[in-house]
């Protein structure tokens, strides 16, 4: 058994070494090879490690990065999967790389971001101490079917790790009601602030999962999130244990947040802009609470937390400031568009859309995102589109109210980077997943910066 562990780990390391030799990072192959050689490898490597897992549709990368940052600030080493390696193979590889050659873990703590589809198998193997579920939105429909399938998948993972404390988003009815179906101990987090938010045109969760009646809302945060209840059977939003009671813009950027927690009231600043990052912070703090970490210290560390890879990232190409905001579904896209609409002064927005397998080959979600509200609020003297479905994006923008003559189609990322170079206005790039990888790579090659798997 010991020999198999060592062999599988060695094969994983060697294959990664060889792949990197050929300049290919971030592939799933090393983990796949290791699992093929020893299917029980992940369970074996994770057994002595205290793990917190993060899953859900939106915000899991940022929430996991916040948890990792809390540990880093506290001087506690942890292992963690980065760069979107959140399927079983990527997670396994991460455990291999942080273990000794004989398969003994060198770190006692782990923060693991996990794809909803991979969650049942990963949770069963890892047996995490806590699981943070951020929310459930429609995403990449042709990969997992429908949003209710993603929910079923998360439920099945929770059932396979019954001792894990589930930290659930009270504001998301699809997520919060998991406590009725799963036997796990549960904690809730949510926003209890007076909301000026409004319902999305299309709700991802209009009907009560218990009785089928239409949910009513005492308050909306955004999309289907808010203070929901079922007028028929009485199901309602659980009272959050970790409740954000006020949010105000911070003079130095980001938000000033007050949170009521079982550990006492917390006042802290979330350095990242936008309300959805306050949601991510609440999710991370609930997770920290479930793990028994020092909560006031964890909250303070959010002041020094910058953006993570791709989700919202600032860089410079020469003198031109470039911001990249990853968008991959309508709810996330609406947040990014709101942000773009609030940017003062002239800027150059670039919308990138690929339809590779990792993006979902069905790109119709762009028609559910509220591009109309962007063009209702401001105009641009020039707009860029790029990606395998650049022309579909152009069409979407035309129907949203953009002037088609101002839309420039970039056939290659090199053309895009060349157009960005030397611009005197800030550039905002809104790519989906694989188009982000390409654009980011080209920008890094043109202006320096590390490759994404490092």
């Amino acid at each position, binding site marked *: 058994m010991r020999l198999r562990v060592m062999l599988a780990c060695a094969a994983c390391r060697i294959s990664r070494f060889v792949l990197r030799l050929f300049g290919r990072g971030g592939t799933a192959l090393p983990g796949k090879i290791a699992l093929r050689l020893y299917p029980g490898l992940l369970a074996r490597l994770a057994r002595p490690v205290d793990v917190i897992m993060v899953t859900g549709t939106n915000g899991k990368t940022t929430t996991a990065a916040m948890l990792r940052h809390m540990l880093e600030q506290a001087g506690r080493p942890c292992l963690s999967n980065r760069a979107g390696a959140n399927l079983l193979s990527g997670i396994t590889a991460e455990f291999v790389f942080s273990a000794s050659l004989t398969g003994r873990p060198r770190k006692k703590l782990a923060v693991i971001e996990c794809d909803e589809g991979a969650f049942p198998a990963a949770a069963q193997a890892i047996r995490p101490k806590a699981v943070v579920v951020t929310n459930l939105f429609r995403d990449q429909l042709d990969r997992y079917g*429908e949003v209710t399938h993603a929910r079923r998948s998360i439920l099945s993972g929770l059932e396979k790790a019954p001792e894990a404390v589930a930290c659930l988003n009270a504001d998301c009815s699809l997520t919060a009601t998991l406590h009725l179906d799963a036997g796990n101990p549960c904690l809730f987090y949510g926003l209890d602030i007076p909301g000026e938010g409004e319902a999305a045109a299309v709700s991802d969760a209009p*009907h009560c999962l218990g009785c089928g009646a239409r949910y009513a809302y005492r308050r909306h945060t955004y999309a289907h999130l808010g203070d929901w209840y079922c007028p028929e059977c009485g199901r309602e939003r659980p009272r959050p244990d970790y409740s954000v009671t006020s949010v105000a813009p911070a003079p130095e950027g980001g938000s000033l947040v007050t949170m009521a927690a079982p550990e006492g009231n917390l006042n802290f600043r979330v350095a990242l802009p936008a309300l959805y990052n306050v949601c991510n912070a609440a999710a991370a703090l609930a997770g920290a609470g479930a793990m028994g970490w020092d909560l006031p210290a964890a909250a303070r560390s959010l002041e020094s937390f910058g953006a993570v890879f791709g989700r919202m990232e600032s860089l410079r190409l020469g003198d031109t400031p470039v911001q990249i905001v990853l968008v991959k579904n309508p709810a996330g896209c609406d947040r990014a568009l709101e942000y773009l609409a609030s940017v003062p002064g002239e800027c150059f927005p670039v919308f990138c859309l690929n339809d590779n397998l990792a993006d979902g080959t069905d790109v*119709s979600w762009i028609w559910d995102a509220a591009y109309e509200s962007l063009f209702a609020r401001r105009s641009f003297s020039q707009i860029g589109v790029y990606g395998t479905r650049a022309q579909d994006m152009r069409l979407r923008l035309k129907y949203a109210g953009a002037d088609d003559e101002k839309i420039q189609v970039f056939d290659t990322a090199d053309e895009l980077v060349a157009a960005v170079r030397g611009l005197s206005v800030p550039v905002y790039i809104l790519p989906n997943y694989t188009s982000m990888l390409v654009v980011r790579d080209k920008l890094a090659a043109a202006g320096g910066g590390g490759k994404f798997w490092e």
Partner: protein
Amino acid sequence: MELKICHLYPDVLNLYGDRGNILCLRRRLEWRGLGFSLTELPLGGGDALGAFDLVFIGGGQDFEQTVLLEDLRRGRGADIRSAVEDGMPFLCVCGGYQLLGRSYRTADGQECPYIGALDLYTLGSEDRLIGNYVFQLEPEDGGSLVIGFENHGGRTYLGSGVRPLGRVRKGYGNNGEDGTEGARYKNVFGTYSHGPLLPKNPAFCDRLLACALERKYGRADLEPLEDAAEEAARAGMLARLGAD
């Protein structure tokens, strides 16, 4: 001139960018200076369909179909049947298209009666037919190529009472076997194409608008529009699928 468009069941049948179809109908009216109004009729919504000029029904999730069937039995089913017979233009996509048929049999053999406005039935299957696809409209609908995205487990078979909407050039269509896609009956256009269907198929959108305008005003002179962006998006996908 104005068209009153009804989006039926937007609360349950709203998958895969259906909003794009409504938006396309709206813009292509507005760009020609024609009026547009939209009424969303959710579950339990009271208005009869006869008050509108065009009805759109989209696709949906499994769980929500049960809620829906009850609502149809409470009268909406009969309302749809009489509107169809009365020549009301309908665009029905995916789940909404199946729903107008006679029945749906699930993969494990459960028979589920639908509203029977169209002579067709659907058999469920575990493996889904997914991907970009192209079909050609029948000559009486203009004969243009329609580019869409299909994602359906159900296989639909047409009875003698309806005609196919088009013939599959690339992809699966109704069932992946007989080369038919969608169904035509009176002014009903049923199709598996969501994603959304209309923006990339302006000729098809205009065909629908013309249908509704003719029925309401007895004539439909639709000015041609600048469709450069539409043509570019079409050309790219047709070339990729080898259907150009």
